[in-house]
């Protein structure tokens, strides 16, 4: 894979990343992106693909971040998220489970077989009678074709494989389908998006629809788009899957979060993907 840098390069990059991000290890203090670095997010987006879109312009979270963060994401050798891409590539052809197979046994080359696949997730699964997201789809393959244990949500393996497969769609437009049997899931996700929660009584929309581009204490609010997930978060120094990020937002408003991979977040993931229809997949994106 010519586009994947060597592990040695990563070690150097990781050290560099530490050197240039003084707050990276101090998780108690907010990430500093002060107002002098006000991001010029306008006109970096796309026209909404649906007349029902709440946005005049649909903009990736990338353009709400600092120039340094944008540069780190753009350079595969500097983007620390590529550690997970590389780990996922190794796992792709690693035999695991009682069937003696790997992902590659059925799908061959991920670069061809998985190209564009993740951009359409979450996707309706007729057999289950519900949509599944990419993490769930991976685990269906593991427990089915591979006869292997499903990976736990948040495990490095599941996040790495999710990152690797989504990376095969990098640059391709988010293309989730929300009609037909997906309609009730879209509706539920939309209701959850506008539902205020927690002691602070805030909905997703309170920040990401009404106030994106504004400074919220130490960060510029984005539109809350999902096209870069799993994202490498500088404050956590690891890849963070979408449902974990949603949990974090709910914790922040002092609400009891829904559980990762349960129906609520699945519906929300479906709806949020629709809000970003047409945005290029950026996985692995780099965020604060």
């Amino acid at each position: 894979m010519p586009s994947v840098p060597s592990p040695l390069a990563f070690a150097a990059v990781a050290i560099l990343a530490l050197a240039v991000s003084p707050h990276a290890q101090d998780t108690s203090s907010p990430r500093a992106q002060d107002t002098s670095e006000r991001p010029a997010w306008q006109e970096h987006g796309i026209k909404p693909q649906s007349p029902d879109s709440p946005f005049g312009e649909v903009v990736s979270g990338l353009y709400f971040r600092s120039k340094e963060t944008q540069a780190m994401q753009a350079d595969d050798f500097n983007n620390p998220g590529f550690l997970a891409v590389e780990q996922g590539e190794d796992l792709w052809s690693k035999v695991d489970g009682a069937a003696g197979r790997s992902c590659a046994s059925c799908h061959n080359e991920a670069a061809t077989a998985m190209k564009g696949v993740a951009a359409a997730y979450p996707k309706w699964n007729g057999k289950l009678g519900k949509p599944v997201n990419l993490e769930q789809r991976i685990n269906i393959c593991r427990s089915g074709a591979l006869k292997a244990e499903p990976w736990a949500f948040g495990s490095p393996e599941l996040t790495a494989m999710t990152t690797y497969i989504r990376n095969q769609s990098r640059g391709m437009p988010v293309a989730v389908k929300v009609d037909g049997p997906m309609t009730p899931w879209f509706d539920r996700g939309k209701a959850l998006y506008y539902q205020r929660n927690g002691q602070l009584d805030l909905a997703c929309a309170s920040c990401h629809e009404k106030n994106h581009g504004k400074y919220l204490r130490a960060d510029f609010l984005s539109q809350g788009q999902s096209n870069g997930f799993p994202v490498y978060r500088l404050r956590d120094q690891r890849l963070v899957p979408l449902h974990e990020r949603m949990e974090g937002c709910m914790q922040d408003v002092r609400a009891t979060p829904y559980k990762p991979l349960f129906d609520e977040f699945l519906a929300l993931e479906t709806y949020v993907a629709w809000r970003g229809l047409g945005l290029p997949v950026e996985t692995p994106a780099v965020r604060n």
Partner: protein
Amino acid sequence: MRRPITAYALAGLCALATAAGAETASGGLAPFKIVAADGTDAIPDPLTDKPGDPAAGAKVVVNRRQGNCLGCHQISSVKSEDFHGEVGPSLDGVAGRWDAAHLRMIVVNPKHVFTEATVMPAFYRVDGLSRVRPEFQGKPILTAQQVEDVVAYLTTLK
């Protein structure tokens, strides 16, 4: 017109019945009376007997686990603090825009003064909320005394 919207928090009555004089933040709310004034709701009477302390209020305003007002608002008089937010309006001169009764109402529950759509949380409310984390259930964001201290501080922002 004076609307007799007398809102006694149920929890407040319980607290009075079971633990008079106990710290309100550990349980229910102190009772308070909402009246209509100048076309919107207001709370003329303080929530506590002890008058609000503006210096204590300034600390609550900047504390990220208490008021965290700078999360959304800018206040020039605490310019030394980092990262003033932009989600709400600047609070400079807020005392010229609202009197203490309205400032108290806004801090207690801003939906009574602005619209239902305001993103500002109610700092002295425990009912009508969804999925509140167990450790915060039944507790307002600020204690009654903290509300009074914040209101006292806000009235200095002329």
